[in-house]
């Protein structure tokens, strides 16, 4: 039953009592998500954090429309999510660019699928390449770009669709530490410039504290979400500052306290 409570008019995304259970012949039932309630307002930057196997990617895949919940509701703009589409654009960890197209064409192909006229496609693609700082790489084949540059193309491709939510699944996991630090700053800049609504999945505390307005923690086999932390630290945030370290510690404790509880439950 959908609840009758008054809805936050700003809420762009809502998950209500979301369940996801995988059934396999040998492992039986595996309940990955249980009673998840989650809401996001327009323009918010939320980081989903948790250890491997906590179900954060499953939740992201349900929101993206690649997976379906077994029970509960997932709504975008008040409408149930039914399959993938450009309103929930995803940035994948492996970039997933089409290697037979150049950088500009990789962005245009998405617009073409939206049946945008050719001239407008090119103009839009170049505008978004400019936004991610790749204007001069427009005609280069994507396999000749570095990992960081490829991920920029992937971000531009997703943003060019003007999605209601931008989903990022550990997008910088394959980059080295220096490229990652640059991409963090870039992402904050791009987010501010576009006012995009972003869900960012990671298992890095530093990434979460640097990027998130709100960090939502998940742990395996937990009912609902484990905890939530609002981060009001001013930007740009300095990962080497004591304030930053303090927030990181609070987040770490929030996640691990649940993990140890679980170990205790297991030991019984």
């Amino acid at each position: 039953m959908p609840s009758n409570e008054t809805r936050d008019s700003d809420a762009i995304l809502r998950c209500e009592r979301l369940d996801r259970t995988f059934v396999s012949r040998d492992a039986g039932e595996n309940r990955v998500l249980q009673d998840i309630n989650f809401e996001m307002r327009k323009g918010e930057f939320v980081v989903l954090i948790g250890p491997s196997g906590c179900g954060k990617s499953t939740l992201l895949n349900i929101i993206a429309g690649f997976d379906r919940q077994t029970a509960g509701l997932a709504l975008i703009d008040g409408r149930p999510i039914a399959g993938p589409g450009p309103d929930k654009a995803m940035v994948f960890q492996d970039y997933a660019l089409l290697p037979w197209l150049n950088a500009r064409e990789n962005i245009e192909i998405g617009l073409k699928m939206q049946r945008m006229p050719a001239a407008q496609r090119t103009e839009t693609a170049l505008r978004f390449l400019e936004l991610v700082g790749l204007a001069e790489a427009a005609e280069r084949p994507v396999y000749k770009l570095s990992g960081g540059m490829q991920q920029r193309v992937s971000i531009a491709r997703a943003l060019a669709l003007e999605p209601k939510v931008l989903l990022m699944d550990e997008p910088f996991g394959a980059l080295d530490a220096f490229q990652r630090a640059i991409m963090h700053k870039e992402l904050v800049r791009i987010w501010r410039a576009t006012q995009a609504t972003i869900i960012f999945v990671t298992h890095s505390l530093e990434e979460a504290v640097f990027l998130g307005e709100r960090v939502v923690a998940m742990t395996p086999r937990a009912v609902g979400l484990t905890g939530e932390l609002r981060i009001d630290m001013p930007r740009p945030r300095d990962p080497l500052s004591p304030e930053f370290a303090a927030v990181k510690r609070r987040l770490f404790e929030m996640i691990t306290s649940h993990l140890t509880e679980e170990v205790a439950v297991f030991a019984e």
Partner: protein
Amino acid sequence: MSMKSADAALRATAPARAAAPVRTLARPSLLASLAPALLGLVVPGAFLVLWWGVVAAGVFPPSVLPSPFTVAAAAFDWAFGDPQNGGYSGTLAQAIWASGQRVLLGYAIAMVLGVAIGVPTGASRLMGHLVDPFIHLLRPIPVTAWVPLSLVFFGFGFKGAVFLVALGSFFPIVVNTIEGVRGANRSLVKVGRMLGARGWRLLWYFILPASLPSVFVGLRLGMGISWELIIVAEMMSVKSGIGYTLLDAYSFGRFDVVIAAMIVLGVMGFLSDRVIVAVQSVALRWHREVSIHAEQ
């Protein structure tokens, strides 16, 4: 303080680094760049010498194993001799044309059918369940076993030969197309769906380009099989072409022509494979580059 000493330490190591020899890439000499090609000729050259030696030593009667020179002379006469002389003189071009057109037509049919059947079979689960078992039941039947049926339905001649070539090269093409479409990079298909592509557009813009490397594997295998089957067809049921010449020369004991025909077949197979590889290297430039970059 500590900064200063670190600085000093850096400076202390600097001269050592500067003293290290600077390696420059010397331009390879002409001889060095030709070396691989020359090396490739060593074994064939040795083989020719061995062949010539065996003939000269009289191990086999010269009528059964002619010397390389006799074969070369026969090949030259076959290619450039005056047709008025009779025999095989000057009939090579005709033979190549006769076999070549059968191969081309049969292969073209196999390519069209293989891709046309392979794509939907790989893309749709229903089609897969319908078509897959049938293909895998037919595939183990050697194409040569189809010869009697082919003779009944298509008779002796052009049609029967084209049928056998098409049938034989159809299987590698269709199987590799199915695999290519089915195995198309999953995250690229996911991207296509995310970008809003469905049905034909998903197939055309995302799945098909991703499947092309596998399709080309099938096309190359199919071309190899085409040249095998044209010879079978021509030996069994056709009165022209390289395969026919080969069998005809055998029945007259002209082993010089037999061997010349074998060499011509090798060259034809090699050249047609090169043509496919050339097309592939243009169409799949990205694929080659991606694999090179992945190795780095």
